[in-house]
C-alpha cells in the first residue's frame, strides 16, 4: 500500500551564521509512526525539531506537514497547520499561574468556539488520559517533574493534534516516571493513532517505545532503523550509542 507521509523533511539545511547545524536531512514520517531522533549533545536534534514545528526557518530545503510547507505557509493559514501539531517542551513549559485544568483548557478556550462545559470536559478527559485525574486544581509548582511532563502532554493533546512532538520527554525524571511517560506514549499512539516525533538521548526510553529511529551526528543522519537493528548494525556510533547508554 502506498502510504502518504504526514511529515516530509526534504534536503533540510540549517545554519547559525556560518556554522552548519544540519546538512541535507531527508526523511518521511507516516501517520501513526513513533519516530525518534537520537544523538549526542550538540548534534542538531533540537534544531531539527524546531524546524519541524516551524520555530526556525530552513537555510535550504523544506519541512512539509500534511503536504504543506510549515516555513513558507502564509501567516493566515499557519494556524491550520499548528492545530495539527502539539509540542511538549523539555521543561514542560506549563503556565505557573494557571492550575492544570486551566493549562489544558487554555488552547481550547483561545482556538475553538466550544462552549465552556465542553472545554472543561475535554480538559478533564485529557488529564485523565495522562493519569492526573486527581490533580485538576493543582498549580504546576505543586506537582512533581514527572507529573508536570504528563500535564504538558495533556496540554499538547488538547486540540487532538495529529502529531505530537516531544523534546526530551524523560530528561530529568527518575526511572519510574520515565517509564510512565514511555508507557503513556505507547498507549496514546496505540489508542489515538497519534504520530509521535520524539527527540531523546534516553536509550532506555528509546528501546521501550521502540519506534523508528534516526541517529544524528554532526548534523547528518548517520544511521536509521529500529533500536534493535541499530544496536546490531555495523555502524560503530549507532552500536556504541545504543549499547553504552543502555
Amino acid at each position, binding site marked *: 500500500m502506498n502510504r502518504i507521509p504526514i511529515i516530509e523533511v526534504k534536503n533540510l539545511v540549517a545554519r547559525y551564521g556560518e556554522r552548519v547545524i544540519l546538512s541535507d536531512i531527508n526523511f518521511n514520517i507516516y501517520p501513526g509512526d513513533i519516530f525518534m531522533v537520537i544523538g549526542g549533545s550538540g548534534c542538531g536534534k533540537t534544531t531539527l525539531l524546531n524546524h519541524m514545528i516551524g520555530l526556525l526557518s530552513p537555510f535550504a530545503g523544506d519541512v512539509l506537514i500534511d503536504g504543506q510547507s510549515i516555513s513558507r505557509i502564509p501567516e493566515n493559514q499557519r494556524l491550520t497547520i499548528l492545530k495539527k501539531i502539539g509540542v511538549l517542551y523539555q521543561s514542560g513549559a506549563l503556565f505557573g499561574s494557571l492550575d492544570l485544568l486551566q493549562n489544558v483548557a487554555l488552547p481550547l478556550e483561545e482556538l475553538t468556539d466550544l462552549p465552556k462545559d465542553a472545554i472543561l470536559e475535554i480538559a*478533564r478527559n485529557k488529564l485523565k488520559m495522562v493519569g492526573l*485525574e486527581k490533580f485538576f486544581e493543582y*498549580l504546576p*509548582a505543586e506537582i512533581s517533574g514527572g507529573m508536570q511532563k504528563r500535564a504538558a502532554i495533556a496540554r499538547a493533546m488538547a486540540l487532538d493534534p495529529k502529531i505530537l512532538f516531544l523534546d526530551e520527554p524523560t530528561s530529568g525524571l527518575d526511572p519510574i516516571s520515565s517509564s510512565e511517560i514511555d508507557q503513556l506514549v505507547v498507549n496514546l499512539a496505540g489508542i489515538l*493513532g497519534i504520530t509521535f516525533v520524539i527527540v531523546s538521548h534516553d536509550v532506555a526510553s528509546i528501546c521501550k517505545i521502540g519506534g523508528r529511529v534516526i541517529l544524528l551526528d554532526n548534523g547528518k543522519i548517520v544511521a536509521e532503523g529500529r533500536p534493535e537493528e541499530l544496536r546490531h548494525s555495523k555502524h560503530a556510533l549507532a552500536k556504541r550509542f545504543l549499547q553504552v547508554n543502555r
Partner: protein
Amino acid sequence: MDIRVERPAPDTLKVTFLGNLDIENVTKIWRLCVDAVDRESPRLLHLDFSKVDYCDGSGLALIKVLQQKQAKNHKSCTIFGLKPTFQKLLEYIEQRPDKVETSALLQEGLPEKLGHITVDILRDLKENVVFLGILSYQLFLSLLNPTKIRWSDFFRIAEDTGPQALPIIALIGFLIGLISTFQAAPSFADFGAQIYMVNLVGLGLVREMGPLLTSVLLAGRTASAFAAEIGTMKINQEIDALQTMGLNPVRFLVVPRILVAMLVTPILEVFFVIFGLLGCLVVMITLGYTTDVFFHQLYQSIEPIDYIGGLIKVFAFGLVIAGVGCLHGIKTRFGAKAIGQSTTQAVVSSLIMLVVVDGIFALIYYVLGV
C-alpha cells in the same frame, strides 16, 4: 456533520450522529445535543455512532456529558456502533474517578488563611532581620579583608550602575534645575528677588533634591536590576549551587552590589547637582544675569556642611537601594511571575525606605542644627 434526533418510542430519544466527531463538528452540534436531551429528558437516550468513522477528545467529551446528564436524572443511556478503538478510550476515561483532590492551598478556610498570612508576615520579618545581620557581618568581613571582595564583579556592576546611568541622571538633573528656576522666576520677580532663585535651587539641589531624586532614579533602575538578576539566579538554582559549593551568596552576590551602590550613588548625585545647577544657570543667563553673578551668589548661599550633609545622606540611600534590591532578589520564589513580583517589590520598598531614611536624616540634621 449532522445529527438526527428521533423518538422511536415514548420516553426514548435516539440521536444519530452523521459524520466525524472532531473538534470542529462537535463545536457545531454540542449545544443541539445537550439542549435536545435537556428539553426531552428521555427515560432512555440512545446514541447511534454507526455512521461515525472518527471521534476525537471533543467527541468523547460530548458522549460523557450526555451520559452524565442521564445518570444525574436517574435515566439510561445506551451507545451503539461506536468503533472499538473509541469505545476503549471511553472506557479508559470512565475508569478514572471524577473525584478531584483540591490543592491544599485552595482548601483553606478563613482561619487558616489568616494564620498563613500572619506566619508569612512574621517569616518575612525574620528573613529581613536575618538578611540584615548576615549582610552587616559579611560587609564587615569584606572590609576587613578586601582581597575577599570579588573585584571583577564589582567593576562590572559599577559600570552598569554608574556610567550607564549617567545620561539619564544628567538629563533629569538639568531639567529639574531648569524647570524649578523657570517656575520660581515670576514669583521672585514680583519682589525683585530673582537673584535669590540661585539660593533656592542651589540649596534645594545640594541638600534635598539631588540626593533624593538621584536615589529615586537609581531605585527604579538599579534596585529592580539587582532584584531581577539575583531572582533569575535563584530560579536557575545558581544560588543553591553557590550554597552547596560552600560559598555565601550574600558575600558573593550582595556585598559587591552594596559597595558599588554606596560608591556610585554619591558620584551620580554630584553629577545630578552639577547638571541641575547648569539648568539653573541657563535660566539665569536668559534673565540677564552673568555667570560671575551666578557663581558668586551660589558660593554665598551654600556652606560646605550642606554638601557634606547631602553626600552622607546619599551614601545611606545607596545602601538602602542595593540592600532592598538584593533582598527581594534573594527572596524570589518560583516562576516567571515571581521575578516580576520581586522587581516591583524592590522598587516600591526602596522608594518607601528612601523617604523614611530621608525623614530620619531631616530629624537628625534638625537636632544637630545642620
